[in-house]
């Protein structure tokens, strides 16, 4: 579903991604961990072309992201085509980024109606079903400011799902939440994983990574150091850097 080959990204002089190689199979849940500043967010943003890559190749669903390849040349895609690609990739942010001037329901139907041009009735029905799925049927008419952080994040997940994506990207979806609200968001993500959604999840919730993740990838300083099934990677990491990071992470209290 996702294939990264030597993906590079620089901001001005500093190279943030130094050749990322990663494959994510359809239906796989990949958890991405790594120290702050290692480039996890940047990599996720490259996957849906919120950032342009400076080198390597990035494919989603077999299609090159953001470019058309002809012979040896990469042609930048037209905005319409980039938007079409992004529409098929859901993204959930650390700070929710709900639209504050719209109700929960309006947040969810906005893109289906304006981008996919779905009939209003249909979009509203599906949005209501999605709200029910994340346990917020009763909050359809609430504004984001009237929702708790956990509720906002669940609306944000429903909003992403409304575009019927084939891939979901989560960037530390619970790290802005009060501890008692983390569980409700992880529970929703778990049901998604159980339903076979392909997911890349940047997270430091190791319990989630262990139970819902099929694979964990450890990223440091712009490269994927190693990846493997949760149990193996967590119990016997092959690399010293991974071991050091894990012991620091696990030494801290639960989050």
């Amino acid at each position: 579903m996702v294939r990264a080959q030597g993906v590079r990204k620089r901001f001005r002089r500093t190279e943030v991604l130094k050749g990322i190689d990663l494959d994510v199979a359809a239906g796989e849940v990949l958890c991405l961990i790594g120290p702050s500043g290692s480039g996890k967010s940047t990599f996720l943003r490259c996957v849906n072309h919120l950032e342009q890559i400076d080198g390597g190749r990035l494919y989603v669903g077999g299609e090159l992201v953001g470019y058309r390849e002809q012979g040896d040349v990469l042609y930048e895609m037209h905005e319409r085509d980039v938007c079409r690609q992004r529409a098929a990739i859901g993204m959930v942010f650390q700070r929710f980024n709900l639209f504050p001037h719209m109700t929960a329901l309006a947040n969810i139907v906005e893109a289906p109606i304006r981008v996919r041009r779905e009939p209003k009735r249909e979009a509203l029905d599906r949005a209501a079903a999605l709200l029910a799925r994340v346990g917020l049927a009763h909050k359809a008419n609430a504004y984001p400011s009237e929702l708790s952080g956990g509720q906002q994040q669940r609306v944000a997940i429903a909003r992403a799902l409304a575009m019927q994506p084939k891939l979901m990207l989560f960037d530390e979806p619970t790290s802005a939440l009060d501890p008692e609200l983390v569980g409700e968001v992880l529970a929703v993500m778990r049901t998604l994983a159980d339903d076979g959604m392909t997911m890349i999840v940047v997270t430091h919730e190791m319990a989630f990574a262990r139970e819902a993740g099929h694979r964990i990838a450890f990223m440091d300083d712009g490269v994927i150091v190693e990846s493997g099934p949760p149990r193996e990677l967590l119990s016997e990491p092959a690399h010293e850097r991974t071991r050091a990071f894990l012991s620091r992470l696990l030494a801290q209290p639960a989050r």
Partner: protein
Amino acid sequence: MTRVVPLPRPGLWLGSAVVVVFAALVALSVFRNPNIRHGVIAQYQFAPAILRGLELTVVLAVLAAAIGLVLGVVLAVMRISPSAILRVASAGYTWLVRGTPLLVQILIWGNLALLFEYLGPFRTNDVMTPFVASVIALGLNEAAYMAEIVRAGILAVDRGQVDASLALGMTRGLAMRRIILPQALRVIVPPAGNQFISLLKATSLVSVIAGGDLLTAAENIASANLHTIELMLVATFWYLVLTTITSIAQHVAERRLGRAHASAHGGR
């Protein structure tokens, strides 16, 4: 319940008393002034010529504000675009328009025929009537100020909103229209209201090209009957009516926008 004795504040009392006495003196000096013919004011306050001038002032201000808003949004978007040429063009426009007196701009537009005798196939004087020149001069001037106001509004919207919009597959234009500008409105409305009040008063400047506005009408009458002060008071009254209505509208708009989303701050 215990009685509460407020702290005596003699300074506050004294200050208030001085203000009241001073205001009373000013009011008296106007109303008892033998040099002001109250009959003349009464005669012209609702005179047809004055009301036509008032109507034109309102039309001028509304048209100029509309041009200013549309062009201002365009200039603001240019100002934050990735193209250096568009950015420089927008900044240059603002620099030129804000850096020169509005009176000079009005005189240039009003006397455009001296610069170009023909505009395309038309004689300049046929196209560039005082009214058209007034609308263009005021609208273009307004745009420069609105551009800054709109730009500040757009920049005040959290960057994450653009990310979220694009991630859902929206084009930049759609995200701007549906997500960014509606949120920027909260920041834009207060200064835009002030700007409109300035504009209402600035319309009086077009009297220098016989723009036919409220002040032009008052001046025309005054030059015939020489009751200058009385007619200025007639005009003053109407300007105050217009700016008061605008202030109230601005206040209501701010309240409603504030209520609709106290959220931008509530959410984290």
